[in-house]
Each structure stands twice: as structure tokens, then as C-alpha cells.
């Protein structure tokens, strides 16, 4: 019987992996993941206007503001790591000639005029729409220029003026000695990053539920099940489906991780630099931030606990899928009966995303102990520092006990359900099966 379990598991796994769609989908996935990780390089490689330096012509009718505007624009651009894209030119020809240049070469014209009431007013002329970021930087820089001009006119000392413009230094103190500023920043970053990290695992759990259901129904609807079950016990058949399904999603998960690693290697080889300033998209910056925050030390237990919960989650989802599939008589019925499971999985994922917004929520904390939800939510809360190792261990314990119950009672249902071809009195039959010794 052990050989038959191995054979059935192997067959089930082989059928999935040998499928041409598995190959096609995974080639596409690997290309997409590598492409996404290197999306900035891909965009740069194709070129386009976004990469061209934009010339901004300035007609400074105040005769004193150009240099100030140039300085503030550089400062503002530096803040958003966008400095290389624009440069200012103090334009001294006529307005008409300036407009012609704007129209011909798609430049931007800024006219600064004196204003007795408001110190200064400005006109921005362009041939077409200006991108939002540039407009905001430009508007902010003109405002800052106006402030400097105003302060100059108020006869404030230049050092004083510099101090006024300096950003405020905020000191951060923690009463808990284990906490630090880097950790706080990391928590904010991880609350954004973690849902992205667990997204593939959420998708794989959905995939697992659908795959096991389809396979069991396929054998059941052709009545091949009668031949199979007359040669192997329902228990062997059940476990072969569970093991093969879990092995398949693990292989699929491994392929995704490998694709991610290859993507990073490619990124390193081509020496890509992020075109997006946000830290979460700047992988090298993210790794530095992780190291500084001290979270790397915690990964020693975060990763194993997360993996254990995810694996237990896969196992629990697959057991439920197998049990439900045995109860249904066709794939349409199964699609309906699996909906609550998909919703539970979705709930787990959304709660993981929302956990950062509701820091300290008792409801979310309680939900992190609930089996099926805990596999995604518990690691998310652990990473964000909202729960500790003990809480995760409790979740693992509850999940383990749930799996034990699913195997104990699920097998009884599977044994009856797998050869049941009628949906009449279905639940009665299943409850009766559970009660049987």
C-alpha cells in the first residue's frame, strides 16, 4: 500500500508538472518576475521623453530671483532624487522668442514678475501638459523663492535666513530600550512590503484548493474513482492527492523564489539604479534599511515560524479541499462549495494588509489565532512587532490541532463521499460518516 501511495502521489504530481501549461505559465512567470524586479532598467532601455533633460527658461523681471529659484529648485529636486532631469536657463531674449523656443523644443518658460502686494507672481508657459511631479517641484520652488525674496526685503540677516530655511531636526526617543528609530521605520516599511511578500503564498493557497478539487472531481465524474478505490484505500488516495498538491505548490513557490533571486542577480549584473525614489522599490536600499533596523537578527525566528505556518496553512487548505471535493458530484458543485474557503483566505490576506492601519487591534490579534487565517496574519503581525513568538507558537499549535481533526474526521467523510454520486441528503450522510467509529 506504501508503494501505491508513492505511485499515486508521483502520478498526480507528474500529471501537473508534465502539463504543457505548467511549462508555459512558469516561463511567463519567471520572465515577468525578472522583468518586474528590473522594471526601471526595462523602461530605461526603451528610452523616451521621460529620460530627457527638461530645459526651463526663466525670464526674471525682478532681476534678483533667478539665482534663488535655481538654488531652491535644485534643493527640492534633490529631495525627490530627481535633480538630473531639469536645468534652468536665465533667458534674456524677448518673450516672443522664448515662446517660440517653448513651442519648438517643448521647453518650459517661467516668468517671474514683481508684485507690490504679493512680492512676486509667476507665469508658467508650456506647449502641452507638464508632468505632475515637475509642476509640484516648480510651484514649490517658486513659493520658496518668494519667501526668500520677502525675507530679504524684511532685512533679515543672511545666516538667520539660512537657519529659517533649514529643515527641523526631530529627535526620536524610546522608553523601551529594545526599540530604535530604524526599527520604527522598518515596521512602517514592512507593513507595506509584507503583504507583497505573502501575495504569492496567498495565491498558491487558492490555487491549491482549486487544483485538488478539480483533480478529485475529474476522477469521480468519470467513475474512474471506483476502479481506483477498489485497488487502493480511500485513505491512500486522499493522502496521495494532499501530498502531490502540497508538493506541487512548494515546487511552484520555489520557482517563484528562484525567479526572484535570478531577478536580483540580473539587477546586480546590469547595475540598475531605481528610477523610483520610494524605498520599498529600491531593493539595495531596502536591504540596508533591514540591516540597520536590526530586523535581520530577528529573521532567525521570523522566517522559520512563517514557513511553518505557511506549510501548515497549505496542508489545512488542501485537506479541506480534498474533503469538500469528495462530497461534491461535479466541478460546478465544487466551485460553489469552495467559495467560503476562498473567502477565508481572502480575509486572511486583507487582515494582513490592514494590520498596520489598526495597530493594537484586539480583533485582528484574535483573528491571528484562527486556523486558516493565522497562516498569513500571524507572520504579518510578528514582522510588524504587534505579537510575539509565543503568540505565533499558539497559532501553530491551534493550526496543528485543526489539521489533526481534519485528518481524523475528514477521512471518514472522504471514505463515504468519494463514492457518493448523489447530492440528496448529502450533509446527513456526511454527519453520519463523522459519527461512525
Amino acid at each position: 500500500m506504501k508503494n501505491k501511495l508513492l505511485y499515486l502521489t508521483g502520478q498526480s504530481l507528474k500529471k501537473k508538472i508534465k502539463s504543457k501549461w505548467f511549462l508555459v505559465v512558469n516561463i511567463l512567470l519567471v520572465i515577468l518576475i525578472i522583468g518586474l524586479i528590473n522594471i526601471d532598467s526595462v523602461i530605461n532601455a526603451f528610452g523616451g521623453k521621460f529620460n530627457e533633460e527638461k530645459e526651463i527658461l526663466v525670464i526674471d523681471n525682478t532681476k534678483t530671483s533667478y539665482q534663488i529659484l535655481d538654488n531652491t529648485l535644485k534643493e527640492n529636486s534633490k529631495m525627490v532624487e530627481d535633480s538630473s532631469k531639469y536645468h534652468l536657463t536665465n533667458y534674456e531674449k524677448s518673450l516672443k522668442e522664448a515662446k517660440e523656443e517653448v513651442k519648438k523644443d517643448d521647453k518650459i518658460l517661467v516668468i517671474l514678475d514683481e508684485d507690490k502686494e504679493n512680492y512676486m507672481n509667476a507665469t508658467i508657459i508650456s506647449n502641452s501638459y507638464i508632468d505632475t511631479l515637475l509642476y509640484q517641484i516648480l510651484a514649490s520652488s517658486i513659493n520658496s523663492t518668494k519667501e526668500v525674496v520677502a525675507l530679504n526685503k524684511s532685512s533679515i540677516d543672511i545666516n538667520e535666513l539660512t537657519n529659517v530655511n533649514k529643515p527641523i531636526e526631530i529627535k526620536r526617543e524610546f522608553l523601551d530600550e529594545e526599540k530604535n528609530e530604524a526599527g520604527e521605520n522598518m515596521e512602517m516599511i514592512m507593513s507595506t512590503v509584507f503583504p507583497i511578500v505573502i501575495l504569492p503564498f496567498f495565491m498558491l493557497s487558492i490555487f491549491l484548493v482549486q487544483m485538488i478539487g478539480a483533480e478529485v472531481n475529474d476522477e469521480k465524474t468519470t467513475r474512474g474513482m471506483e476502479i481506483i478505490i477498489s485497488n487502493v484505500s480511500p485513505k491512500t488516495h486522499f493522502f496521495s492527492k494532499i501530498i502531490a498538491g502540497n508538493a506541487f505548490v512548494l515546487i511552484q513557490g520555489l520557482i517563484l523564489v528562484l525567479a526572484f533571486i535570478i531577478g536580483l542577480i540580473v539587477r546586480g549584473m546590469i547595475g540598475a539604479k531605481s528610477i523610483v525614489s520610494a524605498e520599498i522599490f529600491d531593493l539595495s536600499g531596502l536591504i540596508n534599511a533591514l540591516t540597520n533596523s536590526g530586523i535581520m537578527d530577528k529573521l532567525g525566528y521570523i522566517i522559520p515560524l512563517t514557513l511553518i505556518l505557511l506549510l501548515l496553512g497549505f496542508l489545512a487548505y488542501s485537506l479541506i479541499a480534498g474533503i469538500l471535493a469528495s462530497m461534491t458530484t461535479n466541478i460546478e458543485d465544487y466551485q460553489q462549495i469552495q467559495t467560503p474557503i476562498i473567502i477565508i483566505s481572502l480575509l486572511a490576506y486583507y487582515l494582513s494588509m490592514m494590520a498596520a492601519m489598526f495597530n493594537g487591534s484586539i480583533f485582528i490579534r484574535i483573528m491571528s489565532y484562527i486556523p486558516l487565517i493565522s497562516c498569513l496574519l500571524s507572520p504579518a503581525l510578528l514582522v510588524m512587532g504587534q505579537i510575539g513568538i509565543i503568540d505565533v507558537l499558539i497559532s501553530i499549535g491551534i493550526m496543528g490541532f485543526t489539521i489533526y481533526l481534519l485528518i481524523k474526521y475528514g477521512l471518514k467523510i472522504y471514505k463515504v463521499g468519494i463514492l457518493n454520486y448523489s447530492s440528496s441528503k448529502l450533509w446527513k450522510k456526511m454527519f453520519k460518516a463523522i459519527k461512525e467509529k
Partner: protein
Amino acid sequence: MLKIEHVTKYYGDFKAVDDLSFEVQDGEIFGLLGVNGAGKTTTFRMIMKLLDDYEGKITLDGKEIDYNITNKIGFLTEERSLLTKLTVKEQILFYGHLKDMKEEDILKKLDYWLDRFDISQYKNKKIKELSKGNQQKIQFISAIINNPKLLILDEPFSGLDPLNVELFKKVILEFKEKGSIIIFSSHRMDHVEMFCEKLVILLKGKSVLEGYIKDIKKQYRKKNIVVKGDLDKDKILKIDGVVNYEKNANESIIKIEDESKIENVFAYISKCKNITKFVVEEPSLNEIFIEKVGEAYEK
């Protein structure tokens, strides 16, 4: 020998099989008959160990059936039990492995049977691409690939043309010759009559008739007289011992109570004109089946 002893099976409060007992010796073909819902499929499922919560005992060669014994059983279900997305080769390999057969052995036998059924060209075709008749051949091959000691055939001729029915019959008889126990179920009584030495007729899970066909026919007293000629129906029905009279395109069938009434009929027929045929025949199994099941229904 397959032995079914006092087997009773309930589905909830419904008694699907009621104290069923029969024996089938090695090299015997046994008919398990009954109308729809009589308990045939349940009986097959119990023999195949698909159901184990029944009362009574089922043994093959003195051993209770378990998953080692089912390796020696071949089962052809009434409905298609093929995994249609697989190719013929994959399907037979799959079922062969489940019977603990070695791959080399399965492939050797597969080639033999594909050649025998003249479908070698479909070896690498998907089952869903085959015709109904060819699918039935594959299903039959999957049932016999392990040279079964016990072969259960539920409506084996479904979807087959007369030529292929002959081919199937030949193979089934070869297995009988080799000593296999064959249980055969069909709604076609002519097929059952042609094959089976022994049978049981089930009704509502209970046996209403069982034994060797020759004995059953012998015990069944009514006979048929087949006559060709000009007959007067009203006069025949008035003859002492005539139970029924039917006329088809060429012949008339006169049903009599028992052999002693033949002379009464003959006395009348000898006076009729254009008589070219007068034959006394045993009743068909179909007639016995209809009558026995009908009687039991009325009870």
C-alpha cells in the same frame, strides 16, 4: 471460488441487499441479474471492497477480500470508468500499477490486447478522442490486463457492434477456460443465456430465483410451441392447457402450461392448413425473468 454468505447491506433505513448468498466456482460464468435498483451494483461494490459496512461474509478462495486480493480482480463498470484525459497507454499503465503489476509486464500485455482488439493505432491517443465502442474495448482491456482470477463484467457489451460482441465473447470464454471466475450482469437476457451456467435474479435486494440455468428452465414447466401456418387464434385459446397465444410476422407462439398439453395442441394443429413448422421449445430466460420478477413485484 467466490462465496457470498448471507450478505445484507443497508443504506440508512433502506435495505439494498437482503441476505444474499451464492457461490461461483473457478471457470464458471455467473449471471447476476435484476431490474434497475435491484442491488446488483451494491453487490459488485461489496465484492470489490468499495463498501465494507455490510453484514455477512464475502470470500475469494476462502480469504476475505482486501486490497491484496483486489489485485487479482478485474472490474468492468457499467458506466465509463476511464480517465478520459489520459492516453490509452497511460490509462492502462495507471490501472496496471494499481494492481501492483510491473510496467514491463503491463506494456507487453497491452500490446497483445490492443493487437487482439485491432486498436493498436490508438495506443498513444487520448481516450476522449476514441469512439464509444473503442472506449469500451479499452475499459475491457483495463479489466483483464492483470489476468484476473475474478472478473466482474457489468454490461460489457454496451456500445459494441455485433462483430465486437463476438470478439468480447471469445475473450471472455478464454478466461473461463483458464479458470477465471466470471460474474456477468446484463439487461440482455440473450447474452446471459448464451454465457452463464448459473445465475441469481435479484429484486429489491433479495434473490427471487437462483441456480443453474438448465435446472431453472427444467423447473419452469411452461413450454412454447412455435407453429408456422394458418391458425385460428380463438380456437387455440380454447384448447385445454394453452396459456397464451402470440403471432409475429411469420410464426405463432403458443404457450402451454406443461409438456402434457403438447398433445392437445398437436391434435388441433394437425387439422389446420398450410402447416410447415411445429416445434416445442424451452421458454427463453427473458420470459422466465419477466414472469419471476413480475410475480415478486405483485407480492
